[in-house]
């Protein structure tokens, strides 16, 4: 029962990952692309959390933590560069 739930959740999250990667490629405005890239990284972190939950292994939670941290820094740098042409 629980294995089936996690299996369906894995498949569906992978579909969401593919859709958001297509959104990064297909969107016209650059700010929306930065937003879609942030969303893609968060979905990847959620997939790692789900994998750690299914396998009862805490190492994948570290990877998800670092990935969400790097997503924040990357979004900050990209958006500041896009908005005012300087980072600091």
């Amino acid at each position: 029962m629980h294995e089936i739930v996690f299996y369906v959740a894995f498949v569906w999250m992978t579909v969401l990952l593919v859709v958001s990667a297509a959104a990064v490629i297909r969107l016209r405005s650059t700010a929306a692309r930065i937003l879609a890239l942030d969303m893609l990284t968060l979905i990847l972190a959620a997939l790692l959390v789900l994998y750690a939950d299914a396998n009862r292994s805490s190492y994948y939670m570290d990877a998800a933590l670092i990935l969400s941290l790097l997503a924040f820094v990357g979004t900050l740098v990209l958006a500041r560069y896009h908005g005012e042409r300087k980072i600091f």
Partner: protein
Amino acid sequence: MVPTLVIPYLADALVFLGVLVMTVGVYGAIRMPDTYTKLHAMSKAVFLGVISLCASSAVAGDPAITYRAILIGAFLLVTTPISTFVIARAAFLRGEKMEAPDAVDESGRDLAP
């Protein structure tokens, strides 16, 4: 305290809720007309989906997983408003047009249609 028998079903329900909310967020990414309205769907819904999945693993896992899930949730709680604000500010500074049908621009830069 929650009875031990209920905990796996609670975790399954939280996983289902999180995946559902993230689906709503990704659908908003391809449905909404411009960046300012996309910000609503994508940042908030995807953040709440990750929080729900973290709550699921915090309920079901051992302490090593629980503490890391709480850490991820607290970190996202702090950083998601900042990144949303920075993206909205970048779109505003570049002068992106609003394309929602009833958009109102109060900044005086004539971004509304």
